[in-house]
């Protein structure tokens, strides 16, 4: 860790959802931080709580969700203690969000231009209508939309999927936020477009100097752009560390499973590895380590019935597994 002050520091965030079966924890004591300008990748299966963690921080949870405890310190202020009006000043201006499905995330009955300019004008009252319009055209050009002036007057359904996501990025970066959060930005897109969008996000980040939280279930995406990675499972962080260290020497059997299940050019596709079992249902999380029922390392050992703490393996690289030392040893063998 460098001495730099983190831009966003999440500490022991607990978020629950109200369901017919009582309050179910979706995020269970998650801590991670993002330094200014840094790219942090958050990986996990659906239901691991990776999106809920950030929506909690921004106060964008649906009605049924509640932040029970924890802190989300952004630039020195705990977002959980701020009122709605203060949060509104931060959303869109200091933190920009890019969503997964640009079709449903855009208002179908409002022009693209207006959807971008309303965010500009919200945070800059002196900005005139025409100045905002000019800025929108600039922004659309920056994200690589051809013929931006005409495109600004069109509606989302007149855009292709990739173009919509570009517009979404323009919207998120409109006010030059210090932090961009991209929630599965490429999942809903064609494979051919995914790489372009990733490159664009990286370009925007480089131009604005913003920090980036990239939420994804795609390790390939993380490998490409992240500095550090946070692996989540069952509403908890199971491993975190610099990208090279986590990918090179995974300290958690789940991370290792994810890495092993990636298709590789030097092995036949028929031998593609899959982690046994199903992603856990947050309503019925196993006691202790949530991964133990699918874990090949655990072999039903009694230790796994208690929740392992996140412990440092090397400086900056931590994992929540009772047997991370065994993993390190076996890793040497398999290489």
């Amino acid at each position, binding site marked *: 860790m460098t001495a730099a002050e983190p831009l966003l520091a999440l500490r022991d965030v607990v978020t629950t959802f109200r369901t017919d079966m009582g309050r179910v924890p979706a995020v269970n004591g998650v801590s991670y931080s993002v330094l200014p300008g840094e790219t942090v990748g958050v990986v996990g299966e659906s239901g691991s709580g990776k999106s809920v963690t950030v929506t909690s921080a921004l106060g964008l949870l*649906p009605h049924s969700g509640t932040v029970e405890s924890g802190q989300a310190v952004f630039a020195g202020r705990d977002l959980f203690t701020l009122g709605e*009006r203060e949060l*509104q000043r931060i*959303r869109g*201006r200091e933190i920009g969000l890019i969503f997964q499905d640009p079709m449903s995330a855009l208002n*179908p*009955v409002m022009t693209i231009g207006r959807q971008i300019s309303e965010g500009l004008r919200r945070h800059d009252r002196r900005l005139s209508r025409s100045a905002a319009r000019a800025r929108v055209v600039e922004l659309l050009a920056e994200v690589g939309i051809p013929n931006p002036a005409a495109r600004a007057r069109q509606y989302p359904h007149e855009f292709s999927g990739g173009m919509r996501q570009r517009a979404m990025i323009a919207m998120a970066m409109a006010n030059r936020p210090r932090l961009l959060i991209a929630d599965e930005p490429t999942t809903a897109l064609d494979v051919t477009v995914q790489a372009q969008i990733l490159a664009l996000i990286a370009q925007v980040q480089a131009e604005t100097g913003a920090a980036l939280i990239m939420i994804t279930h795609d390790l390939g995406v993380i490998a490409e752009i992240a500095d550090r990675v946070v692996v989540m499972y069952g509403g908890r962080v199971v491993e975190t560390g610099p990208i090279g260290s986590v990918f090179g020497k995974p300290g958690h059997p789940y991370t290792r499973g994810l890495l092993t299940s990636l298709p590789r050019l030097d092995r036949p596709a028929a031998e593609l590895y899959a982690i046994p079992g199903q992603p856990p249902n947050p309503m019925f999380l196993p006691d202790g380590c949530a991964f133990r029922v699918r874990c090949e390392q655990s072999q039903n050992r009694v230790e796994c019935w208690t929740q392992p703490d996140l412990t440092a393996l090397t400086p900056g690289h931590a994992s929540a597994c009772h047997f991370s030392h065994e993993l390190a040893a076996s890793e040497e063998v398999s290489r």
Partner: protein
Amino acid sequence: MIAFLVRRLMISGVVLAAMSILLFVLLQVMPGDPAEMMIDPFSFAGNREEAVARRREQLGLDQPVVVQYFRWLGELLQGNLGYSFSSGRAVSEVMTTRLSGTIRLMGASMLIAVLVGIPVGIVAALRRNTAVDYTASFVSLLAISVPSFFVALLGIYVFALTLGWLPTAGMNSPGGTGLWDSLRYLILPASILGFALAGPYMRYARSSMLEVLGQDFLVTARSKGLSRLQVVGRHALRNAMIPLVTVAAIQIPSLFAGAVVIEQIFAWPGMGRMALEAISARDYPILLGFVMAVAILVVVCNLLADLAYAIIDPRIRIGGRA
């Protein structure tokens, strides 16, 4: 756009023609003979059989139905709706005098239904599962399920008889003119008819709004830092209005059915009462005129709904490219 309108109008013509044939057949099936009804068996002196037959001939009822239909249609295409069996006045004349009363009543009711039902539904959706929502939903259920004649009688009892604020029936006081006079007579029937329609409007508005409130783009709007008012007013409302417009337009003809009852109770000289009178007198031309007017209204409302749809929702472009 023009092509769409032309096509729709042609389809509408076919629908109306089919409607008129069906009506003609139904009228034949209806028990009772208009000629018989006109000649009172007690006061008529002379050969009644002969008189009835003569009257049937005069009215053209002795001809086969097909002939009757084409005669009527031929006159209709020349702009003649025929003459009332009972009064002998032109149907078009009777209808126009009655139409203004009905339009006044229906217009006011519609206004009340929209101005009350839709805002209440939207507020109920925004405050869902609170006392506000439950109260609004309960009242709208009442509006839907309690028959309007009952509400009307209750209204007359409370506001006209007990409190004496409003008149019990009619459209104007005898010899009375002026806006206030007309308004006083309009308030009670229009509110009751409007209340009955506000019920379904409230429900549609609530469910439509709830659906929109769960959409992703509202989270996007909030993520831009917009205020709650901006999120609801700018993003949610317009989307919620799309299905509402159709529903609202399609409900307009049902207002006619309500108007028949309300006009009868409040002795309101409108088309509804005219139709009731025509039914009991077996006055076929008037009845035909009334039902055709309703049919045209239905067709026009549907067309308007489609056009309004295209105006609110940019994804729908009428005619040409999809």
